[in-house]
């Protein structure tokens, strides 16, 4: 059997803005679909995606990006490496980022969210993206890594650019390479003294000085924290506000039963993943659903399509906070499962708790979206009125 083909372009503006109808079409065509527009084989269904993510021998991370320049630039990072080299790089990256390392931060992050949401509720109307979705993770990550001064001011644009350049070589990618380069250059030259004393960032340099991690890796780790941890979390927090505003009856369920907070976040991630498409290199011929994908080709893992697969989730296009889809694909899965998911959960749970405690209803204006290669996020989200709890 040959692989079905579609003329959908995964990186066309209209697909990036609302990929789900296109994903549904691809999913019905086959578990794997060839897309000549992008020169990729797209994996579309839950089971094949999860299997691929758990099989790094077949689906290598040497080309997680969709242009050769970014894949070249990522060589030597945990993100772009395969077992067995990957294990050591991953351990170094997660040493300061695992839930174990972050245990002490929960109280502080909860307090920050409570205070920020409190201010916004008192204000009565605000832009949920600038004032909350961006402000909160930027503050958490800046404090965590110990960023000060001009770096703090650049975090948002550097973080956005680091994601954009993972796309194919289109105009967005070309425009963002110089900005991603600023981040790269800064991380290549950063020293312990540039980071606040007592911060996790300073701790990474201490670990390097002690010989606990290999020489010259501290800058790379900081780079990955910034490149991966900012834009995606911002998207997720914006999505929380947008979905709670759009589905007030679902927000009511969380307000009335706070034990639903983790389930609600899992559902936000399943329903609108910050990252819908991610790359893999097909290292050897692989048969999927009776069709062969040849070695040497590029795969596009459609995480957002797998999350809406009716073969796995009942009524997948409904947003239901009680669903608790803990096995969603948004953080990936397996050896490369999102290294920052523990921090993302801490931040998002804190925001949901604070909203559920302090707001009864969020009245939203029209959301504005701008197409972006990798991160799907809301650019502006006016909260016209907050009904306080």
């Amino acid at each position, binding site marked *: 059997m040959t692989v079905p083909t579609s003329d959908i372009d995964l990186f066309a503006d209209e697909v990036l803005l609302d990929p789900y109808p296109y994903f549904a079409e691809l999913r019905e065509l086959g578990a794997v679909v060839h897309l000549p527009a992008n020169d990729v084989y797209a994996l579309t269904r839950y089971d094949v995606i999860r299997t691929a993510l758990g099989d790094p021998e077949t689906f290598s991370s040497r080309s997680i990006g969709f242009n050769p320049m970014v894949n070249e630039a990522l060589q030597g990072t945990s993100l772009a490496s395969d077992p067995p080299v990957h294990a050591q790089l991953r351990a170094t990256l997660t040493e300061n980022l695992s*839930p174990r390392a972050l245990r002490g931060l929960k109280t502080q992050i909860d307090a920050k969210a409570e205070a920020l949401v409190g201010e916004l509720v008192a204000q009565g109307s605000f832009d949920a993206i600038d004032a909350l979705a961006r402000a909160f993770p930027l503050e958490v990550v800046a404090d965590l890594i110990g960023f000060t001064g001009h770096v703090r001011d650049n975090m948002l644009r550097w973080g956005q650019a680091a994601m954009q350049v993972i796309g194919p070589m289109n105009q967005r990618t070309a425009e963002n390479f110089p900005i991603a380069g600023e981040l790269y250059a800064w991380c290549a030259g950063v020293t312990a003294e540039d980071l606040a004393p007592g911060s996790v960032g300073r701790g990474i340099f201490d670990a390097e000085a002690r010989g606990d991690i290999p020489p010259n890796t501290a800058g790379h780790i900081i780079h990955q924290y910034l490149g991966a941890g900012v834009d995606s979390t911002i998207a997720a927090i914006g999505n929380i506000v947008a979905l709670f505003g759009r589905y007030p009856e679902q927000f009511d369920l969380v307000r009335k039963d706070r034990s639903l907070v983790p389930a609600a976040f899992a559902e936000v991630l399943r329903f609108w993943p910050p990252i819908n498409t991610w790359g893999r290199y097909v290292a050897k011929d692989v048969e999927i659903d009776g069709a062969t994908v040849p070695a040497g080709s590029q795969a596009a893992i459609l995480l957002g399509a797998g999350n809406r697969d009716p073969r796995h989730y009942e009524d997948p296009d409904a947003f239901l906070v009680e669903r608790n889809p803990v096995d969603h694909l948004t*953080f990936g899965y*397996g*050896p490369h*499962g999102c290294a920052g998911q523990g921090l993302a959960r801490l931040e998002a749970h804190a925001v949901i708790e604070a909203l559920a405690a302090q707001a009864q209803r969020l009245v939203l204006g029209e959301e504005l979206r701008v197409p972006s290669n990798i991160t799907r996020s809301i650019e502006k989200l006016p909260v016209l009125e907050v009904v306080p709890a």
Partner: protein
Amino acid sequence: MTVVLGGTGIDGRTVDSMRIVADRERCEGHGLCADTAPEVYELDDDAIVVLLHESIPPELERKAEAGARVCPVAALRVES
């Protein structure tokens, strides 16, 4: 360190039905296994997974499997 546990049949004999394999090196302490199946998994003081039963009682096999499935870094494996 890898821990391998066997299942126990209804009559108490060890059967080779289901085994849970925990890769403690790979475990990062996300704790989703313990949230999903607290009867089977726990995190120790270093936030590393601990399997609570030497052999998993048959009535917990489904929960054990569900807990293994949600591990985001594939540190838990079910072998049948």
